[in-house]
């Protein structure tokens, strides 16, 4: 297919104000997405706090690809493919562990935690040890981290992680700034929510400011929460295109108008005095402003959603099947705040939580609905007439506008058209 053919193809599927329904249902498009997005661009894999000690490892993924994230004795982090180089068995099965070497259970082939093949039983059957230098574990070509968040890219060349993250680096900086030690830890454990829906429905929803007052009305009512109003027509919050497919619901303007430290967290400084003291010791007079601005609400394309006090990792498994891995953010060394963040996470996205259950219901209804023959298109025009640029030249819109969805599709198209 020539580049002109490719452009024509995407012209017929993606327009500035609408996208074709087949983008969510066509297995061929999903297969192309794996090659052009998931196996090429930077994808979030894990956090350094998940492998704190030498020889720690944890099982992760890049889309459907099984990945072992290991820390070797020198402290370097590796992303290895969980596939024995002999007959393709999973080398590791436990979700996490500590081992300098991995032994495949099928025929006993043994690998170092850096991916090197250490040996195999009865080596005379291979005429000695010649294979050892050839058959290490597969590895993710590039590994890089930002503020402890580890990303991998299967592409040998391409933009650096920081170039890929671009303006989204600010979200990570703001997140760790709320930790008195400047570090977050992902040590609270993970919940997995599987939905029968295309992965892009989740990505688009994470920074969709139009749905909370409808989809989440029940939890906002039960919890007497003011979150819904942040996404109302009177809110001064904005949504933002951060570039490279990264998008944001920036609630800071609304929080500043309300002028309530920790209001974004639904509490006040008197409830967590230890945490506030810790933060004040680091940030001094700036602490109040930091506590008012709160934590970011940013979708880092294609799979990491920083949702204030939680992180969501999106993992596509099929064109109509996606897993959302969820954990509570933990500030290193702040037990009082961490306990509250964990409790809120359990309440909102835990097994009996309301928030993610509401969203999941919408994802699956969406996936069923998009199979209807007409209309063939999904409309993403909300706020198109009132788009504007902020002081950093980013396109922004009102709180309920669809600037993020247009930004995601614009970047998606650039990746899918690329050679």
């Amino acid at each position, binding site marked *: 297919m020539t580049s002109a053919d490719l452009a024509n193809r995407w012209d017929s599927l993606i327009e500035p104000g609408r996208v074709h329904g087949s983008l969510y249902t066509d297995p061929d498009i999903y297969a192309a997405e794996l090659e052009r997005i998931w196996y090429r661009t930077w994808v979030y894999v894990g956090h350094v706090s998940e492998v704190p000690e030498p020889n720690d490892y944890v099982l992760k993924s890049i889309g459907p690809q099984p990945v072992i994230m290991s820390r*070797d*004795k*020198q402290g370097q982090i590796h992303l290895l493919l969980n596939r024995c180089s002999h007959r393709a068995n999973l080398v*590791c*099965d*436990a979700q996490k*562990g*500590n*081992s*300098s*070497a*991995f*032994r495949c259970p099928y025929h*006993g*082939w*043994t690998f*170092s935690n850096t991916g*090197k093949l*250490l*040996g*195999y*039983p*009865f*080596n*005379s*059957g291979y005429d*000695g*040890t010649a294979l*050892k230098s050839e058959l290490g574990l597969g590895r993710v070509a590039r590994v890089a981290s930002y503020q402890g968040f580890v990303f991998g890219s299967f592409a040998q060349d391409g933009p650096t992680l920081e170039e890929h993250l671009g303006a989204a680096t600010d979200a990570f900086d703001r997140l760790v700034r709320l930790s008195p030690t400047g570090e977050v830890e992902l040590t609270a454990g993970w919940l997995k929510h599987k939905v029968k829906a295309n992965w892009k429905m989740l990505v688009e929803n994470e920074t969709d400011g139009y749905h909370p007052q409808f989809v989440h009305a029940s939890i906002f009512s039960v919890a007497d929460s003011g979150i819904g109003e942040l996404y109302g027509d009177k809110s001064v919050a904005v949504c933002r295109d951060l570039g490279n497919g990264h998008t944001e619901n920036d609630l800071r303007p609304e929080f500043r108008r309300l002028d309530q430290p920790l209001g974004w967290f639904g509490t006040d400084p008197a409830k967590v005095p230890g945490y506030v003291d810790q933060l004040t010791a680091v940030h001094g007079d700036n602490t109040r402003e930091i506590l008012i601005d709160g934590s970011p609400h940013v979708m880092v394309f294609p799979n990491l959603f920083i949702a204030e006090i939680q992180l969501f990792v999106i993992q596509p498994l099929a064109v109509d099947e996606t897993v959302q891995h969820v954990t509570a953010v933990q500030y290193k060394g702040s037990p009082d705040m961490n306990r509250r963040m964990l409790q809120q996470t359990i309440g909102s996205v835990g097994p009996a939580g309301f928030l993610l259950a509401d969203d999941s219901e919408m994802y699956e209804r969406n996936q069923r609905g998009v199979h209807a023959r007409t209309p063939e298109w999904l409309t993403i025009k909300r706020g198109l007439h009132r788009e504007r640029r902020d002081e950093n030249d980013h396109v922004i819109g009102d709180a309920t506008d669809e600037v993020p969805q247009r930004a995601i599709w614009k970047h998606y198209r650039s990746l899918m058209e690329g050679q």
Partner: protein
Amino acid sequence: MAGERVPLGELSSEFASVQLTIDHDGNGPRLRIEDLRTGHVGFLDPLELETLAWLPEGALHKLLDPSLLRWRGDA
């Protein structure tokens, strides 16, 4: 004390399970390691253990080649 065994505990990963005991059957203490999957037992004395503590990165990996000792190709 001869005959005394001080259990230290069991260490398991998805790759191996061993029972560790301080053994006093000899003239000096030694670490008794039992491979719980096969029942095979090995011992390490304090000097050997100290040497292990000083092993450089990867030195033990040579011994982790299954063909070297346990599943020898020429056996």
